């Protein structure tokens, strides 16, 4: 499989008469873009607002982030989701780099939604503060979940995906500024020089805890809860096979943007043929029942063994209950002799004194730790809020509250906030961006 990601580096985005990309400027015909999004009858109101790094803007509730792209062959960017099923990871895809389309609730938030500050101290907590964010701020007719804490957020998440395809199509016929090429030979067809290097797999545990469909991460449109672990080519993940869900406390979440740009896959590619023989990705999941956890761990370990893996990087999209999957899988891999490095965040409590993962095993002896979900974060007011600030306290976001005996409400009258890291949008960056770690104090 050979994937060419053609990059168009966006220096600024603005609104104009038509949608096009020129000299680093992405111009968006706002009316046309909104009309395209509103072809979905479930979206009752929509606006597009641009937030740039350094601006005094706070975006909340953010439900999803997507890199604007188009598939040059004409197929959907997200097969099985925004169009029919077709294999991705092969051929040419164009991307508007340095930007992301954000799905933002005009009013209503939910448990898995997050917050992004575009400047100040808050900008240290999420990768997305560095990007030019094209915010789709929308409301929908999904009355069945209007006052639910858990929301599927389908219309607005799908709207953001479609908006990203609309924007991406502006560069469909243009020549990219640069092209990243990702090519990985089949497992049994490696050259002798590559084959003699230690073989490694990347084991991903995307979020799949909800029994009801509509909340979990999707694999080619298929609910990750309904599958056993499977083998995938890394290009598929970089090229739209994986869609983020709408359930997990936000700092632990991997947005669709994170899947499309997964830094750990790129790191493994960078080392392929030099220090390791990168075999591919084992796509697992994070189901809640013990038997499902054990079954998944067994599948992962068997697959790793039969692929001939010597080593693995294992990453979980979540904390709490999913720690059991993470540790079970870690143990299963070590037990068959696959030397494993884990990537996760921790939940040590606001005082830092709680057990970092729900379950532990001494075999999990090499872990990269990306943050503490329960760290308290206090942020000053911002000049502009995109979305609705009240949602943080009112709508049951995992890191917000409407009242607390000691701390008061999350959202204060002056627009400042106090919250748990839990609701920083994809803040712990376990997919690989994280420049956070955990230290003993």
């Amino acid at each position: 499989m050979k994937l060419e990601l053609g990059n168009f580096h966006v220096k600024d985005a603005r609104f104009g008469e038509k949608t096009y990309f020129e000299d680093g400027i992405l111009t968006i015909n706002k009316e046309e873009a909104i009309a395209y999004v509103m072809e979905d009858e479930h979206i009752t109101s929509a606006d597009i607002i641009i937030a740039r790094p350094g601006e005094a803007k706070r975006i909340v509730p953010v439900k999803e982030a997507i890199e604007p792209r188009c598939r040059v062959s004409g197929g959907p960017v997200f097969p099985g989701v925004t169009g029919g099923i077709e294999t991705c990871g092969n051929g040419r895809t164009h991307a508007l780099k340095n930007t992301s389309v954000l799905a933002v609730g005009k009013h209503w938030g939910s448990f898995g939604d997050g917050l992004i500050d575009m400047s100040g101290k808050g900008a240290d907590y999420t990768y997305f503060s560095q990007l030019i964010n094209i915010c789709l701020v929308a409301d929908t007719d999904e009355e069945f979940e209007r006052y639910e804490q858990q929301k599927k957020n389908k219309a607005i998440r799908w709207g953001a995906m479609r908006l990203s395809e609309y924007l991406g199509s502006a560069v469909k016929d243009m020549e990219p500024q640069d092209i990243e090429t990702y090519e990985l030979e089949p497992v049994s067809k490696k050259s002798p020089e590559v084959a003699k290097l230690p073989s490694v797999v990347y084991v991903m545990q995307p979020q799949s805890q909800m029994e009801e469909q509509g909340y979990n991460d999707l694999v080619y449109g298929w609910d990750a809860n309904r599958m056993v672990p499977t083998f995938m080519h890394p290009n598929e993940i970089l090229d739209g096979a994986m869609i983020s869900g709408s359930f997990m406390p936000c700092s632990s979440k991997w947005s669709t943007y994170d899947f499309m740009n997964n830094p750990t896959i790129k790191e493994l590619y960078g080392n392929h043929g030099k220090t390791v023989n990168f075999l591919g990705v084992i796509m697992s999941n994070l189901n809640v029942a013990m038997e499902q956890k054990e079954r998944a761990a067994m599948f992962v370990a068997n697959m790793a063994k039969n692929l001939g893996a010597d080593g693995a990087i294992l990453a979980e999209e979540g904390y709490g209950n999913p720690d059991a999957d993470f540790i079970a899988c870690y143990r299963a891999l070590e037990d068959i002799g696959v030397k494993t490095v884990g990537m996760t965040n921790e939940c040590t409590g606001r005082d830092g004194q709680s057990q970092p993962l729900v379950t532990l095993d001494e075999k999990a002896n090499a872990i990269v730790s990306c943050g503490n979900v329960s760290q308290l974060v206090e942020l000053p007011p911002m000049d502009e809020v995109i979305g609705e600030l009240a949602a943080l306290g009112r709508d049951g976001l995992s890191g917000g509250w409407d009242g607390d005996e000691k701390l008061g409400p999350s959202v204060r009258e002056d627009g400042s906030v106090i919250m748990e890291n839990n609701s920083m949008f994809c803040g712990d960056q376990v997919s690989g961006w994280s420049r956070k770690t955990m230290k003993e104090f």
Partner: protein
Amino acid sequence: MKKAILYINQFFAGIGGEDKADHAPEIREGLVGPAMALDGALKNAVVTHTIICGDNFMGSREDEAVEKIMEFLSDKEFDIFFAGPAFQAGRYGNACGVICKAVKERFGVPVISSMHEENPGVDMFKKEVVIFPGGKSAAAMRKDTKKVAAYGDKILAGEKLGNAQEEGYYIRGIRHQVIDKTMEPASKRAMAMLLNKLSGQEYTTELPIPKVERVPIAAPIKEMASAKIAFVTSGGIVPADNPDRIQSASATRWGMYDISAEARLEGNGVYKTIHAGYDPAAADADPNVCVPLDALRAYEKEGRIGSIDSHFYTTVGTGTTEAEAARMAQEMIVHLKEHNVDGIILTST
């Protein structure tokens, strides 16, 4: 100038060795023994008093010793408290830990000690007390004292304190996140760790697995037919209006609700779950799937258990820290004991 007080044992006070280890607590104005080195090393404080206590006295009559020392301190002004260094002396290490913990709790001042890594006092007290690694014997007095004095000076000057590794004290199981933009991203850290692990070279995990604290399993109930059973749940089942406003995640509150008149927990607006960590549909429709009161009532009727406690006890487990959970359990236990409960069915999600 800020003020410091030091705790030492009878040996370092020059009173005597094992034969004087029953020496009762006393407080002296000014500097005794190691207090001189500490006073000399401290830049931002003077040592005003030295407390002396025999190691045996502290070991065998701890409550009395602590009470007396608290009394000594109650009318003293001090900004920081030191104990030791205790080197490898086990009983002395224990004494330093006990007194530092008590002083910290009572007076809220920083407390610092120093012990050799094999001193059992390290593991017993490192969570409550900042303890610096020290030498095996008094030969290290000057060096060990310098370390505690330097850290004390930093606290007193209001300087930003580093983490355990940077400052050099024993790690304590208190973990916080650190943002460091100069650090390699997690993907590169993982790759480097993997390469080292694959080639058998050394690497440092960012999450050392701590030893798990296990609660001993209770003795079995002898007579189930006369036992009183209670439900405790972390599944978030509450009366529909959630009267105690228990949080849906990261809970710090819990509730106990009277079910003495209930045959089962009704859904449909009577009971529901407020737990945000699982799909609530099944538990909202029938709360007994989480707190199976209906099944236990049947057992009660059949005489398989004696009775069911008048209340059930509930909180939310998702994101709730171990420390908060343990505190809430301690608070529930008071009521469970009062109700003479013999056994608990603990349900999760």
